[in-house]
Structures are given as structure tokens and as C-alpha cells.
């Protein structure tokens, strides 16, 4: 039972949070359910290799106050966006909707502003899957909701900046609802100061019939921040749901992404690039759930691990009995740059239908010796050759991102990490 560790997470704090009545009821229910929730443990398969046992829950308190001062925003580079939202320590602090999106009927607001807001909460994630999910329900401030009306195509991305500047536990929640045949891209930029915050964000997305949804996460948290993220999408008939994840910052960052392909002909993609350095841990769990027939899922995770950084990729592709003519692909490639770096890769397939095409592949290896030799044999110094190979390795992911500005941020972050590495190498040689 987890509650014994949760002295700082009091009923009073949960009750003090603002929002509509139904939300308070959800919080109350989640709070009372905490008694029944087991604390995560690395003995469990879903937490294996994670660092959850290092987390001192008893020393944490939930953030309970809306921050007053808005810090500067890292969104200058978005030349055009349909809307900009700022979440600060999980609280909605600013929403700006451009005219075009507003006229198209796009709704972006605190969930309490909608009369029928309650229907979006838990629309995909009926029940939390772990302690952090329960805490998000019990201690999350009022969630953000995005509704894209039927048939509406929003060209420019909706940019959500999630800033954290506290040493407390923070619980942002975003709920996106794409009605039938709509199309939208959301960019979520996660940053934090060097605070030792523990962030547990939840993202729920429903993608209606034949709708097209893309979500880009730029995880650029501060070096001491921990995160336990859960993002879930439900894709309807002929819908397309795509996730793009740039894993850049944080001390320990766990991202669980569930793609539920409930409609016939639905498609999902999860592409991720991550680059660990120092003692960062990048922890990814994925679940591609093929519920209906003629569904397709594609997954490509590529990571580089430097210094004593670590990564975990653990993914399950599940093909349910009704999911005939499924196509599923799951690929994870890791380059281990230093002897102390460590990567674990566990792709799993669970197939309950015999009319499917599935593949999975995973590798953990140093930079390919033959590739390195080949480039060096053209007169390129070893460290530069390594850089070229790494840039090339990530290029496949970078170029797949649907928002150019996000590709640029990722590219720049990778170049920055490679610069630091080159600098460290040359210092060591001196």
C-alpha cells in the first residue's frame, strides 16, 4: 500500500484545488482509492529497470498553488501556430487562440469552462494504471481540454508549453478530442528549471473516425527533474494517431505511450529520439494495442547513450483475436557510446490472430566499427566520424517529425550534446 509513504499528499490539499464539482468528486474518489494502490516497485515487470525505488515519496508534497509570475517562454521559434497554451507547474496560466482556429470552432480551455467537460475526463483512460495516475487524478489542477470540431483541418500546430519551476510534485493533464475527419497537430514542450520536481503528466487523446492527429513532445526538462508521463490515444475507424518524442533532458524520465487502435483501419505511429548523457535515465514503455481488423502500427525508437546514462525501451504489440490483417512494426536501436552507458531493449509481441504481418527488432551496440573505419579512411578524425554517424543515425527520426520547428529543436539539442562530447573528448586528450 502506497499511502503510508504519502504523508505530504493530504486530503486537505486535494480538496483545496479549484474546478467544477464533478472534478472535485473525481479527486475525492482518486484520493480515497490511494489506500488500495500499491507503490510501484522494480520487482514488477512494468517497473523493471526503472529508478522508481530511488524516489522518496515520503519527502514529496503536491503543488497546490497557481504560480503567480509567468517565466519567459521558449516558443519564439514557432513562426506560426494556431494557438499557444502555457501550463505552469501544471496550472493553465495562458491561452492564446489565433483567429483562424477560433473561427473554425476549435475549443481550447480549462475543462470546467465546458458544460459537458466531464465527458472528456477519463474518456480514454477510464482508470489510472499506477500510483502516479491516481495522484494525477487526486492532485491535478484543472485540466486543459482541446476540442477540434468535425471536419476541421488546422494547419499550424497548437503549441502547449509546460513549465515547471518548483521542487514539488506536479500533475498536468491535457485532454484532446478530435472529432470525425478533423486534423490537428499539437506540440508539447516540457521544460523545467533545475528544480527537483517530480512531474506526472497525463495526456488523453481521442481521434474520431478518419481524423488525423499528431502529437510532438519535446522533453527538455532540467537536469534534476523526474517525470512519470502517461500518454494514451484511442484511434477510431480509419483514424491516424501519431506520436513523436524528443527525449533530451531530465534526470529520470519515464514515458508510457499507449496506442489503442479501436476502429477498423486505424493507424498509429510512435517515433522517438533520445540522447542520454551524464547520469540521465530515459525510460520508455509502449503499448500498441490492435483491437480491430486492418489496423496498422509503426514504431521506431532510436537512442544514443553517453557517459553513464541509461535507457530502457520496453514495448508490447498486442494483436487481439478480432484484429485480422494487422500490420505492426516495432524497432528500437541504441548506440552505446561509452563503457559505462547502458541500454535495455525489450520488444514484445503477443499475437492472437493468425492473419497478421508483424515485425520487431532491437539492437544495443557501440558505433558500428566498419562504418567508423570507412569514414575515417577518408581522412575524417575519429571523433568527427563518430559525430557524422550519430547525426545520420538520428536524421531518420528528425526528418520524420511533422513540425519543422520541432525537428530544428531536436537537431539543435543533439548537436549541442555532440558538441559537449567533442569538447570533453578533446579535454581528455590534453
Amino acid at each position, binding site marked *: 500500500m502506497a499511502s503510508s509513504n504519502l504523508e505530504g499528499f493530504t486530503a486537505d490539499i486535494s480538496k483545496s484545488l479549484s474546478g467544477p464539482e464533478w472534478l472535485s468528486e473525481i479527486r475525492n474518489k482518486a484520493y480515497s482509492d490511494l489506500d488500495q494502490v500499491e507503490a510501484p516497485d522494480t520487482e514488477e515487470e512494468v517497473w523493471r529497470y526503472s529508478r522508481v525505488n530511488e524516489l522518496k515519496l515520503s519527502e514529496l508534497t503536491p503543488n497546490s498553488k497557481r504560480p503567480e509570475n509567468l517565466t519567459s517562454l521558449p516558443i519564439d521559434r514557432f513562426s506560426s501556430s494556431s494557438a499557444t497554451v502555457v501550463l505552469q507547474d501544471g496550472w493553465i496560466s495562458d491561452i492564446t487562440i489565433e483567429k483562424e482556429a477560433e473561427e473554425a470552432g476549435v475549443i481550447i480551455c480549462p475543462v470546467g469552462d465546458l458544460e459537458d467537460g466531464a465527458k472528456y475526463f477519463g474518456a480514454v483512460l477510464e482508470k489510472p494504471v499506477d500510483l502516479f495516475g491516481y495522484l494525477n487524478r487526486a492532485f491535478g489542477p484543472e485540466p486543459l481540454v482541446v476540442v477540434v470540431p468535425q471536419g476541421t483541418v488546422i494547419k499550424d500546430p497548437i503549441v502547449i508549453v509546460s513549465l515547471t519551476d518548483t521542487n514539488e510534485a506536479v500533475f498536468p493533464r491535457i485532454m484532446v478530442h478530435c472529432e470525425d475527419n478533423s486534423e490537428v497537430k499539437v506540440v508539447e514542450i516540457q521544460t523545467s528549471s533545475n528544480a527537483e520536481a517530480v512531474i506526472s503528466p497525463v495526456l488523453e487523446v481521442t481521434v474520431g473516425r478518419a481524423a488525423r492527429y499528431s502529437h510532438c513532445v519535446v522533453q527538455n526538462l532540467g537536469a534534476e527533474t523526474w517525470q512519470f508521463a502517461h500518454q494514451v490515444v484511442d484511434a477510431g475507424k480509419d483514424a491516424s494517431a501519431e506520436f513523436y518524442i524528443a527525449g533530451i533532458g531530465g534526470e529520470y524520465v519515464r514515458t508510457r505511450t499507449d496506442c489503442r487502435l479501436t476502429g477498423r483501419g486505424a493507424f498509429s505511429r510512435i517515433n522517438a529520439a533520445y540522447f542520454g548523457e551524464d547520469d540521465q535515465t530515459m525510460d520508455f514503455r509502449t503499448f500498441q494495442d490492435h483491437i480491430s481488423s486492418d489496423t496498422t502500427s509503426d514504431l521506431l525508437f532510436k537512442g544514443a547513450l553517453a557517459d553513464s546514462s541509461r535507457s530502457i525501451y520496453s514495448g508490447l504489440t498486442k494483436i487481439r483475436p478480432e484484429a485480422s490483417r494487422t500490420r505492426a512494426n516495432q524497432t528500437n536501436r541504441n548506440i552505446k557510446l561509452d563503457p559505462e552507458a547502458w541500454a535495455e531493449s525489450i520488444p514484445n509481441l503477443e499475437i492472437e490472430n493468425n492473419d497478421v504481418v508483424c515485425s520487431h527488432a532491437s539492437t544495443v551496440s557501440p558505433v558500428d566499427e566498419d562504418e567508423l*573505419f*570507412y569514414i575515417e*579512411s*577518408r*581522412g*575524417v578524425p575519429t571523433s*568527427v566520424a563518430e559525430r557524422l554517424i550519430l547525426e545520420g543515425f538520428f*536524421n*531518420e527520426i528528425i526528418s520524420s517529425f511533422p513540425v519543422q520547428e520541432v525537428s530544428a529543436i531536436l537537431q539543435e539539442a543533439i548537436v549541442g550534446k555532440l558538441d559537449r562530447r567533442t569538447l570533453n573528448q578533446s579535454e581528455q586528450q590534453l
Partner: protein
Amino acid sequence: MVGVNRWRKRGDRDMTNSSLVIKNLHVSVSGKPILKGINLEILPGEVHVVMGPNGSGKSTLSYALMGHPEYEVTEGEVTLDGKDMLALPSWQRAQAGLFLCLQHPIEVPGVTLESVLTESARAAGRETSTIKKQMLEEAESIGFEEKLLERPMNVDLSGGEKKRNETLQLGVLSARYAVLDEIDSGLDVDALAAVSQRIQGFTHDQNLGVLAITHFSRLLEVLEPDKIHILNDGCIQLTGGPELVNQLEEEGYQVLLGN
């Protein structure tokens, strides 16, 4: 052409004191001795051909010269203009003027040829802004399609295209000694003609010294060899002039080597 004058000038200098010298070279792979004392001296503009049966150590010679980490030199010397090559990492050997044309050029996903050649020029302190132009010129001279230059290195290239690509690099990098590891294997007639004529041109105009490793005499219809060496069981067992090729074609290795 400005480039030609520059080359002639350097060639003149090379003629006086340059050479690639291999002395008593012993090489092991995974602890197993493959080369057991190779001696060769190649002067600028010379074409030396190494032939030999399968498993005689031909590819080992090329990889060891360029410094592939799997090939361990256990004894001997390799010098270029008196400079100890074995003490240098691969990239510095390349900077010193050594070039290896691989038998099976490596595919490097996501990395363009232009970026590699630019970084090589940068490391040498040479002008990098002209690399693309040089690439285009070389590509045209060997019939390498321009659009293929945009691809990641060797990815989705045919066997012939890969060898043209290697030859293009040889030209741009202005190497002084080239080790050609079976550059002719798997090439169609047109590609072989383009590649071998270009290399012959380098030996003639730029005094490129060549160590060509091959199974077949057809490369030598264009490339004019000065010396033929027969490699067998890790040693050069016979050296002669171009006439040795005909003799080999008629008699085979067994008879020629007196086994």
C-alpha cells in the same frame, strides 16, 4: 586547367623522394597469422598489381595498410615518404595521402558523401567550399549520376555505382597512393572502363601510385601495370612484369608457383 598545373608540380616533387614502402609486414586476424612478411615499394605513378588465390591474404593487406582495428600488425614497417604509417590512426594515414578503395564499400545510413569529404578537407586545413564542385566534376568524369550524390553513403547503390563512388572519392581527396581492393569485381563492362580509365588518368596526370589487388586480368587492359606480384599463403612468392598476367591466365596459380 589550374588543377592540372598544381598536380604536375606536386608530381615533380613526388618523383624525387616519395614512395610507399612495405617492409616485412606480418598481420594477424583474431590471433591467426595471415600475412607473413610482405615487402613492396611503390613509387609515384607506378601501378603494382597483387594477384593470388582466394585466402592468400589480399584483402588483409589492404585493410592492414589502412589500419582497420581488426587487423593486427605483429611485425614490419609501412612508410609513406619515410613517415611511419603504422603509428597513425586510419584518418591520419588518409591525410598523409593513402587511400583505400574497398571491395565492399560500407553503407552509412544518414551520412552524405559531401559531409564526409568536407570534414576530411577541414581536418586537412583545405578549402571546404569547393568540395561540392569537385564532387560534381569527378562524378561527371566517371559517369556517376549526380542525383546519387544526395544519397547517404553507398545506401541503395548498385555494385557498379559503389565502385564509381569510390573512384570519385579518390579523385576529390587527391590521394597519392591508392590501394584498390578488387575494384573490378562485379563491375559491368562500362563501369569497369570508366573506373579503370579514371585511375589510369590519375597515375598519369597526378603521379598516383597504385596497389591494385585483383583476381582478374581485365582491369589491366586499361590500367598499365609496372609490376605483378603473386601473393600466396601470406607471402609474395613471385614478382614480374606485365607478361606474368598472361602466363598466369595460361598456367594457373598452381603451375606458376611450381606446386
